[in-house]
């Protein structure tokens, strides 16, 4: 990667040359450069009264298209991506993102429709959403679905709001103030519970990597809203007493929320609805192949049992007796639904991340029943295959067959002089993106590994070989591992100064 020198102006106004991979847009700006994508409208200024008109400068960089294309192409080339290599990130399910999904999502019939168009004009879109809900209900063993949440975390928040409404309906709103999570829970779980005004009780895991049933029963009481549980859990393990766990929560009148981040282990293997869950969210950007988009967008459909259906957010997608589709209670159409009822309302604008949901639908229809079951089967096999190769070089957190992911501990390596973080950075030099590190919190020096079903066996073997090589290097020359990465576009970054003295935007040239 070529280094180039760039002029930057730091805070004290002194010009200093700083090496950078790529200049910022403001550094390749020149007054007078412009494209001609849209022109005209010069008379509009007359329509805006002087007191409202913009007097502040509009200091956006002035660039021409060739510069912009080169700039963003260079930026793209600095990125690791699924299209370039394997991501063994536990609980992220970085499987291949099919290109036909992208192509159909950009069909004008899907991309060029406005969310408040009359229902009559978007029957194809509504039919797709309606059918996607049915597919997800079948996969999860649930009864009703909302496709609105923009992400798993928003689905969690939606579900806990629904739990709140459910308990309030039964006159127990004031009584129930606590949500229980296991100590292996993803951070979004307690955060979502807190956003609903609830206290969070954390229950520890036992020596087998399950939620400790006895501790759970002690923590339960009639002041509990519910339990938020991931299954398989973030250790990659199927909860061995799952039905008893769910029964214990139900026995005190609580509800069980399923965090579906690990659904890639369960397609055609087991349905959360058969196991005791009252609802479950899906991350389509994990299980159903929609691209991660460097952090988003995704979508987080929420699938619920009939008892929770009345509280689902609106608008809901309905089909009338003539087979026409409508949005119930969106108020955008002449067709009037039965009203808000007990719905918790509208937890985001419009009906969901349609452009993402089209991709998920396309994937589910491409694979079909057999293909989805095969995906989970292969994901589980691939994870156990890697575990078999790595169990001698690293500590295994819990010695049980794993599902689609597993957790190693680099505690042995830590004693030898290099941490999980160092191992992660050394993997970059081996050409792999690191696995998830330091999560779940219950395993020290955690490395959470999920290969998914779309990595060829030779890639899995190469990853295992790289991990073993690094373990060997830690034994003989830990300093070299601590110095990684040496072959990435950048070496380790100074995150301390970035947090102490945040620079969150560029400096405008004087």
């Amino acid at each position, binding site marked *: 990667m070529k280094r180039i020198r760039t002029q930057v102006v730091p805070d004290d106004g002194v010009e200093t040359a700083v090496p950078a991979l790529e200049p910022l847009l403001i550094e390749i700006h020149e007054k007078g450069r412009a494209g001609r994508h849209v022109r005209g409208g010069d008379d509009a200024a007359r329509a805006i009264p002087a007191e409202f008109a913009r007097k502040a400068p509009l200091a956006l960089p002035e660039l021409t298209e060739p510069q912009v294309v080169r700039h963003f192409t260079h930026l793209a080339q600095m990125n690791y991506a699924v299209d370039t290599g394997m991501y063994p990130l536990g609980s992220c399910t970085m499987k291949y993102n099919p290109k036909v999904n992208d192509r159909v999502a950009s069909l004008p019939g899907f991309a060029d429709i406005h969310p408040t168009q009359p229902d009559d004009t978007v029957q194809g879109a509504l039919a797709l959403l309606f059918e996607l809900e049915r597919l997800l209900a079948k996969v999860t063993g649930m009864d009703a679905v909302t496709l609105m949440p923009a992400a798993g975390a928003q689905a969690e928040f939606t579900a806990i709001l629904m739990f709140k409404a459910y308990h309030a309906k039964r006159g127990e709103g004031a009584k129930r103030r606590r949500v229980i999570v296991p100590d292996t829970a993803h951070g979004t779980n307690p955060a979502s519970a807190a956003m609903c005004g609830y206290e969070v009780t954390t229950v520890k895991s036992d020596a087998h990597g399950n939620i400790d049933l006895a501790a759970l029963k002690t923590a339960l009481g009639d002041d509990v809203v519910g339990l938020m549980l991931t299954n398989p859990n973030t250790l990659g393990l199927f909860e061995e007493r799952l039905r008893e766990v769910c029964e214990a929560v139900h026995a005190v009148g609580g509800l069980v929320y399923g965090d579906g981040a690990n659904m890639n282990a369960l397609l055609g293997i087991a349905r959360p609805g058969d196991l005791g869950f009252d609802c479950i969210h899906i991350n389509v950007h994990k299980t159903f192949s929609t691209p991660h988009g460097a952090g988003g967008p995704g979508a987080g459909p929420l699938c619920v049992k009939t008892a929770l259906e009345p509280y689902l957010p609106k608008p809901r997608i309905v089909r009338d007796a003539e087979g026409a589709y409508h949005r119930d209670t969106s108020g955008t159409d002449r067709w009037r639904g039965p009203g808000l009822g007990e719905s918790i309302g509208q937890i985001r604008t419009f009906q969901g991340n349609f452009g993402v949901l089209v991709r998920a639908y396309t994937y589910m229809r491409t694979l079909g029943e057999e293909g989805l079951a095969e995906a989970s089967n292969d994901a589980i096999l691939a994870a156990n295959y890697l575990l078999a190769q790595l169990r001698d070089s690293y500590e295994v957190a819990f010695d049980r067959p794993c599902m689609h992911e597993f957790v190693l501990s680099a*505690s042995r390596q*830590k004693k030898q002089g290099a*941490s999980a973080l160092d191992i992660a950075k050394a993997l970059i030099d081996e050409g792999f993106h690191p696995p998830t590190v*330091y999560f779940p919190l219950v395993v*020290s020096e955690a490395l959470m590994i999920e290969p998914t079903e779309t990595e060829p066996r030779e890639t899995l073997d190469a990853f295992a070989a790289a991990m073993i090589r690094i373990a060997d290097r830690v034994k003989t020359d830990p300093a070299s591992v601590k110095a990684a990465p040496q072959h990435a576009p950048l070496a380790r970054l100074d*995150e*301390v100064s970035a*947090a*102490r003295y945040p620079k969150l935007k560029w400096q405008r040239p004087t």
Partner: protein
Amino acid sequence: MSTVPEDLRYSKEHEWVRADGDVATIGITHFAQEQLGDVVFVELPEKGSTVRQFSSLGVVESVKAASDIYAPLSGEVIERNVKVIEKPELVNTEPYGNGWMVKVRLADKGELNQLLSPSDYRSHIGETAGAGGD
């Protein structure tokens, strides 16, 4: 400079106290800042607010973690150290000096007796020193 100064008293949660009449200066110990790593931000209570012994009075943050600062004593905050808000690295470089956090007017001087002596604190961290962590 000793990492456990003799003229201070300590809490189990790794805060130190310098008592001067009914005013106590409070900070976190050398051991604590070492465990935390580079401190990037300190959140402190406002002047005039009340702190209760063993409750959280603020937060000290590293890049990847946030730890509560527990009040070793009860009282009213009469001063907060703005230097440590402007330059969080002082907590690492001068934990007992310019890295102090708040000055509190004590509600109950008797609480001082519940704190650890330097030698008790040394044993305390000697006990926990082997317990891993980053």
